[in-house]
């Protein structure tokens, strides 16, 4: 029970940090926020198969064929898909952010500083 509590509280903290960063107006913060959020989601998917220690996900002849002896293999497969997609998408948004920074000269999410700085933006 303790480990469940620890994991779910940790997930909550990581998700909250991700959401907070996501709401900031700098592209870099948004990307870090998305990364944190996807970490939290990946662990969450993994946990939906319940926590089992030392249980194989595939059928083994030496173990009695009851569910108590096995880990759920499906969340492990799902989390793999989710990891691949979120990893690739983080790479993609990084490239877009770099190009946008080069073209607009600003790392604000709107591509220009609010309130008068105009197209010049903040030079990094």
């Amino acid at each position: 029970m303790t480990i469940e509590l620890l994991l779910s509280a940790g997930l909550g903290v990581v998700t909250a940090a991700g959401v907070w960063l996501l709401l900031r107006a700098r592209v870099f913060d948004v990307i870090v926020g998305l990364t944190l959020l996807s970490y939290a989601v990946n662990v969450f998917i993994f946990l939906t198969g319940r926590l089992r220690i030392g249980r194989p996900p595939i059928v083994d002849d030496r173990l009695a064929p009851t569910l108590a002896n096995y880990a759920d293999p499906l969340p492990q497969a799902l989390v793999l898909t989710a990891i691949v997609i979120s990893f690739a998408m983080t790479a993609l948004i990084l490239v877009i952010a770099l190009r946008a920074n080069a073209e607009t000269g600003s790392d604000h999410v709107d591509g220009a500083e609010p309130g008068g700085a105009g197209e010049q933006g903040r030079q990094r």
Partner: protein
Amino acid sequence: MTWPHWIIVPVVLPLLCGAALLLLERLRPALAAPLSVAATAAHLLVAIGLAAQAADGTVRAYLLGNWSAPFGIALALDRLSALLLVLTGVVALAAVTYAVAGEGRSRVDRLGPHFHALFQFQLMGLSGAFLTADLFNLFVFFEVLLIASYGLLLHGAGAARLRAAIHYVSFNLTGSALFLIAVSALYGITGTLNMADLAQRVAQLPPDSALLARSAGLLLLVVFCVKAALLPLYFWLPATYGAATAPVAALFAIMTKVGVYAVARMYTLVFGADGGPGAHLAQPWLPVLALGTIALAAIGAMAARDLRGLIGYLVIGSAGTLLLALGLGSRETVAAALFYLVNSTLVVAALYLLADRIGAQRGAHGDALAPGPFGPERSLLGAAYLLAAIAVCGLPPLAGFLGKALLLAAARDTGYAAWVWVVVLGSGLAIIISLARAGSRIFWKPYQPPAPTAAMATSSVQAVALGGLFVALLANTALAGPLARFTGAAAQQLLERRPYIDAVLGARPVPPAMPIREVLGGKPGKDRP
């Protein structure tokens, strides 16, 4: 058609063509465009064939990898899926034809690399999302179409597109994270991802896990409404669609409909009237938010400063109308929604292509809603604009009017009748005013024709693409009777969830053609030390 594998063809065909196009674009660039157009046309033909199959009213299931239903991924074809597949095919064919037309800068597919491959992958994602009967598979197809759409949105580059892409990509990545949370929470509670199986299990949930299932269901609603552009979640749409090249924006017209489709599927099948503790999950939210969406879309349309921005708000308004009708939830309103969906998708796609032609004719003025010079095609484009405007705001005699009339008639029996009438008719008036204002500013006050350029004239192929969409719009009006019967039957099929569940869960794997285990030798699991 006796061949059982037709259902998977709309997914596999664009996948294979997209992969081949990646190679062809380097080796034989001249062949890429014809192959892409031919594949899109073949996709449309297959979709029409599937629609003819689905018209008999049976739900057909297809077991991927020959695993029986709750364990493997299943695809399912019913009238709703078939209708959306055909619609996707029509819009995609017009868009890809338009993209390969023209010369120089006006030829869209040459503005950057991999246009056709991305286009085919987007087509694959759209078809898969309409066909799948598995929730996680739906997520994967959403990702396929989104990833392709990121590339297509950025096609042609430029600061405006990059700015729009940052908003669009980060917004949709957050949406994907929420999708995963919702899907895995549902899996954690019910132990299944198959939508038919999920429908049965959610209906029998004990009260202590029902709250969690309802939360996951509402989280899914948020995700689908990100795609469908419902009230608090639509602010990305006008800038994104306005920044994309014209054929991409036309194809994106069907992308908001994926969200609408997912809402229609999940909130009738799993969280519909028979959903037990999850029943009527979206009912308190959808009509209210959709009415707000329609009202704000009308205001946004009146405030738009260019034609593409105006069309963006028309997309939001039509998505709001569709979700309103789905949220009201009776058989008649759902039927009206599906009827209206066909018209609104076609006309929005046509308007995006038309706005591109209008922009080309006006040189530096582009599609800004300000008086300016206009090239020699003023009367022709003006007539096309008038036709599209009539179709999009729902004036008689075109099918947009029939769709809205069906919706208003169907809404009379619901609790929201007065609100629906006031908001739909009021927003219709506001949209007529903004379209009339846009038309008069663009077409009526040209002071002088600008110097003609090569990019200006509409090429014959571009005219074919646009004309095809207009023919589809007119056919939609002429065949309104049969289409209304089809959408009525589709709504009936959607609300009776039993045949769908029985078809998906009752599908039996094909027996192996040869005893594969004996050929390979030994039984599984017994041959290890």
